[in-house]
């Protein structure tokens, strides 16, 4: 067989049924091998969209997402998505065609140093120079993408390698070897148990690493046994059982007041699969100032990177969490956290007839079918989704956390729908973000994907505008999008029906119509440009110094 045919063979060997991509000159042999193969290819309308679909596929399913692109511009268009996957630890294998080695390094047509470009945006990358290395390289790529802390791996394959003849050799079946259980860090575990047992005000700070480790059951058992209150990062929303009364929701820049205040007061922060990101900590020096820290992660480079831990453990949360589940005596603290929740609960009694996005999203959350996957874009609507929607697993909340990539939502929702065809896939986007990968409406049309699209439109780059209002003296530089297209007409051009609403009393009927419609649907929601996301921890401030409204002079 050819190298190109071997690529398809290796995809099937790894159980890959769906891939996302866009053909071009240097990857034509692989696309030829794909023709009439059992692997279903989803033609996206931009390589970035294809790679984001692979990310959505991976995040919604837990499987490895696969995307493909040609050399040069095809490969460069993948870069943003690969960076997104790296920062959010998403297992993706990207396959790129490369110019033939005979002309490599000559500035050939559509030649760019893809291996060089990939260094900073992948967990690892390969350039395959010999067809005899192709199978092993692809097997390594799949292994690397999923192992340890997951991430994107790129395999660049020159055209001559794709065309060369090679024999398929099945993977070596490893003989049954005795694998000893991972050595438990007993000394550290003993220290952790002591810290937990003696803590008066403990908090679990839960990151995306918990669900990626498959440790949600162990997490919830741990929380139940210890009774400690908990907070989550953006990526971990949906990790804690909804019935847990001591869950305080998201912490950080736009976290709940209860979560931020409790973390600032805690005497023991148990950090599980999280990384003290600056959007979480605010001013790092002032973050959880009284707390001792237990930090567990699968990535050794995250331990002691930003906050020195009193007890740091490297390992598998599934194994470690049950070993740490000791009872605490923190009833007063639990009650205090309940009081914080009560005192700082969300309010939805927004005056006037105009639609208030937080209320709309709460209504959407209440009306969406069970186990719906919600993808969102980046900006104000993203934070409103995190604050006002409810999820029963992090796999149902796809949000570009680390890179914060506008344009993520629509293609991610496509990937989610393909990975979980029986679940509803919803994208909540903003008018700025939606336009960044709007071409993927064509992908929805082509494959008749019943993705539900909610565009929250304030005719502004809302989050940037909010910061301009608060921190740049109201100088609204380049954030006016009042010349947006007619989104319903735009969707109609792709045979996607839609409806536009602007009043509160239209919301429930509009949501019901969207969910009742059997195919894709776009709901355009006009909101007031003056609505902002609260609370907000200003840059450089401690998390207890949240703004909850405009300063008086701004508001009047």
């Amino acid at each position: 067989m050819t190298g190109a045919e071997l690529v398809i063979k290796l995809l099937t060997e790894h159980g890959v049924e769906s891939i996302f991509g866009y053909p071009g000159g240097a990857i034509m042999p692989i696309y030829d091998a794909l023709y009439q193969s059992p692997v279903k290819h989803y033609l996206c309308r931009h390589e970035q969209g294809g790679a984001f679909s692979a990310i959505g596929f991976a995040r919604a399913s837990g499987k490895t997402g696969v995307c493909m692109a040609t050399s040069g511009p095809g490969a460069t268009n993948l870069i943003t998505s690969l960076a997104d996957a790296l920062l959010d630890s998403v297992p993706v294998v990207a396959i790129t065609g490369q110019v033939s080695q005979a002309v490599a390094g000559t500035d050939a047509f559509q030649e760019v140093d893809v291996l060089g470009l990939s260094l900073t945006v992948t967990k690892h990358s390969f350039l395959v120079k010999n067809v005899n290395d192709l199978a092993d390289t692809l097997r390594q790529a799949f292994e690397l993408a999923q192992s340890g802390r997951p991430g994107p791996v790129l395999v660049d394959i020159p055209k001559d390698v794709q065309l060369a003849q090679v024999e398929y050799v099945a993977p070596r079946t490893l003989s049954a070897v005795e694998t000893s259980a991972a050595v438990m860090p007993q000394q550290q575990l003993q220290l952790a148990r002591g810290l937990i047992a003696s803590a008066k005000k403990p908090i679990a700070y839960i990151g995306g690493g918990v669900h990626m480790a498959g440790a949600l059951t162990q997490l919830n058992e741990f929380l139940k046994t210890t009774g400690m209150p908990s907070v989550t990062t953006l990526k971990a929303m949906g990790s804690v059982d909804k019935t847990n009364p001591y869950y305080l929701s998201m912490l950080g820049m736009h976290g709940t007041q209860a979560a931020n205040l409790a973390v600032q007061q805690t005497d023991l922060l148990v950090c599980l699969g999280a990384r003290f990101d600056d959007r979480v900590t605010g001013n790092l020096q002032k973050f959880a100032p009284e707390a001792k820290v237990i930090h567990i992660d699968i990535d050794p480079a995250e331990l002691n990177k930003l906050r020195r831990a009193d007890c740091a453990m490297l390992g598998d949360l599934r194994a470690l969490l049950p070993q740490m589940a000791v009872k605490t005596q923190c009833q007063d603290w639990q009650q205090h956290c309940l009081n914080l929740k009560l005192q700082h609960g969300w309010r939805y009694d927004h005056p006037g007839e105009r639609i208030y996005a937080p209320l709309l999203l709460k209504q959407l959350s209440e009306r969406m079918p069970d186990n719906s996957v919600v993808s969102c874009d980046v900006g104000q609507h993203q934070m409103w989704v995190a604050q006002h929607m409810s999820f029963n697993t992090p796999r149902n909340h796809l949000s570009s956390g680390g890179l914060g990539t506008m344009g993520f939502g629509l293609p991610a929702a496509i990937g989610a729908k393909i990975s979980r065809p029986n679940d509803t896939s919803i994208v909540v986007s903003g008018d700025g973000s939606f336009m960044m990968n709007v071409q993927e409406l064509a992908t929805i049309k082509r494959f008749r994907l019943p993705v539900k699209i909610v565009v929250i439109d304030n005719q502004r780059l809302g989050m940037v505008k909010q910061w301009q209002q608060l921190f740049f003296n109201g100088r609204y530089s380049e954030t006016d999008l009042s010349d947006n297209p007619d989104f319903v007409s735009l969707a109609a051009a792709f045979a996607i029906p839609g409806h536009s609403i602007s009043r509160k009393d239209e919301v429930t009927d509009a949501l019901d119509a969207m969910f009742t419609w059997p195919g894709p649907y776009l709901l355009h929601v006009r909101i007031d440009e003056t609505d902002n996301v609260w609370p907000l921890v200003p840059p450089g401030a401690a998390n207890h110094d949240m703004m909850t409204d405009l300063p008086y002079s701004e508001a009047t």
Partner: protein
Amino acid sequence: MSTQHTLTIQTGFEVVAVERLLQVTRYRGFQLCGLEMKPMADMSGLLVTLNILSDKPISLLTAQLNKLYDVQHLELHAPATAALRA
């Protein structure tokens, strides 16, 4: 006051392994002040020696370098303290 560190690293034979070492060193905010590279005796890979000047804990760099798939072995030698020149 910065500290000078010497790292000896065994990598695969691909040149890109050296690129990765340098990229991580730069991106993580460490100053490279010396670099030596030679093939290992059995030609199975490269032996790279990096001299690093840093006012940050060197563990922040070694933890990142150790994650690289190319890195087969990394050894940190005893540090020497050096005054930064203006």
